[in-house]
């Protein structure tokens, strides 16, 4: 029992950090309606990782992470610049295109790396149980300055996220904040994907905040709720995967995702009565 707890202490600490960071960003992403961004970012980051491997660095080394990060930041900067006052192609579609191209390239690269197709699968499922204390601490060091930046500029970030049709500031001003927002976001996503895999990150971003948003609209409440839901979901998911001997990433994804559907139906049931 104690051994299990020691074994699980690093993954659980990682879950606390990741649930916090991702559910904060998730609130922004959901409000903006660009659900795809994280999956496509994660795919770009995975592509960057494959690029690093192709250059001869070993998996999990810091050189690979830096290459992956730089690659992601370049792509996301381009994306931030596609923000227009009037959108011809929805931003969501641009994100989808980035995803398709990223995955397509990853597939071509997989042929060049020994066991490359195996690597695509690994990126999909991920495994939070293998996280080390070193990774947890370095994540903490990365997340603190990002949180500070977001606390300083929280008003601007929220204003941009909430603007649907009209921009709150001039377009050049908006773009500056957009770049800052997406850069910090991609740093967090790259980190998180290395630890948990693409779908783990995706679901931790969207699912808890979706549940919170169903019942609350204030940012602070949504953040607190989504953090708690995300944390509870990951821990229960890890426990279930342990019990039933299945991969923990998929277990967490299905658990949290299923919960969203359940809560949506719960929300819809009384809603119908109150309208009619």
């Amino acid at each position, binding site marked *: 029992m104690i051994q299990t707890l020691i074994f699980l202490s690093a993954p659980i600490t990682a879950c606390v950090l990741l649930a916090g960071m991702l559910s904060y960003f998730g609130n922004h992403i*959901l409000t903006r309606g660009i659900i795809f961004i994280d999956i496509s970012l994660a795919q770009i980051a995975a592509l960057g990782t494959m690029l690093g491997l192709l250059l001869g660095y070993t998996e999990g080394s810091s050189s690979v992470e830096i290459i992956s990060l730089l690659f992601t930041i370049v792509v996301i900067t381009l994306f931030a610049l596609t923000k227009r006052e009037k959108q011809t192609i929805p931003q969501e*579609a641009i994100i989808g295109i980035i995803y398709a*191209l990223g995955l397509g390239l990853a*597939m*071509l690269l997989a042929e060049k790396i020994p066991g490359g197709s195996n690597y695509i699968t690994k990126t999909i499922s991920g495994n939070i149980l293998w996280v080390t204390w070193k990774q947890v601490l370095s994540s903490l060091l990365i997340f603190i300055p990002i949180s500070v930046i977001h606390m300083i500029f929280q008003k601007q970030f929220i204003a941009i996220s909430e603007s649907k049709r009209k921009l709150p500031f001039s377009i050049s001003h908006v773009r500056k904040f957009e770049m800052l927002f997406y850069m910090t976001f991609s740093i967090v996503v790259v980190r998180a994907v290395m630890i948990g895999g693409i779908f783990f990150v995706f679901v931790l971003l969207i699912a808890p905040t979706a549940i919170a948003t169903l019942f609350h609209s204030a940012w602070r409440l949504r953040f607190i709720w989504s953090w708690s839901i995300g944390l509870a979901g990951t821990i229960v998911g890890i426990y279930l995967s342990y019990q039933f001997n299945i991969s923990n990433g998929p277990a967490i994804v299905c658990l949290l995702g299923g919960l*969203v559907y359940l809560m949506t139906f719960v929300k819809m049931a009384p809603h119908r009565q109150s309208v009619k």
Partner: protein
Amino acid sequence: MNSAIEFMIAPFFATMLLIGINVYFGIHVIKREIIFIDIALAQLAALGATVASVFFEHAHNHGHEGTTLEEYIFSVAFTILAAYIFTLFKSRKLPIPLEALIGIGYAIAATGSVILLDTAAGGEVHVKEMVEGAILWVSWGKIIELAIVFGLIGLLHFIYRRKFLALTDDYSKTQPIKHAMLWDFLFYASFGIAVVHSVSVGGILTIFAFLILPASISALFMKSWQSRIFLGWGLGTIVTVCGLYLSWNLDVPSAPTIILVLGVCLLLSLIVKKVLPSSAS
């Protein structure tokens, strides 16, 4: 060279069929801003097939062509169920975007397949195939099947084009036309069946690219439905020929190559659009 043409003729026809139906649906999807829906439905169909192949062990010989009847039925059943659920979600004013629920459906389907395949032997090969598809190995029987299914769906959408177009053009309203929910369901269901058949040949990623990329490019230059569809088809044809040719010559997988050529086209058209802003109409 002759052998190349002979080898490529079936994949070419298959790709043309795929582009024909997916470009049309792509314009719908872009207008509705539910970019995810196709990938989600495709992944759900794949989950259905996986469930069937785990339930019915004898279905385990597939690799080239072998979608068994059980797999097919499960795929279609899963997508139609999803179509119904999405229609239901759409019909109410929920505080979260439909796209979020679609995305979560996708994540569940994708990882659900991983959980199921973990227990089945050779799971990784399946995952790769599900994503990548195998257009090059398509048979004529399959092509005829695609032509029939897409023909029927196309006919349905052609006959009731006014309903479907109106529904998509006013997608943000809850009840734009009479019996909106029924038409919405028909839209998702027919789309779902098209996706099941498309994916069985082309793989999830390729179909996603066929949906989004040509439709985005045509949205840059054209406004009306008709011109968007024809531009998308023309572009799709040219790109397919180039992509198949490149993949044959460079000996790389065909699907990612076609996708990347489409991506290059999008980049070029973005540049053209930037240089000639007056050409937009």
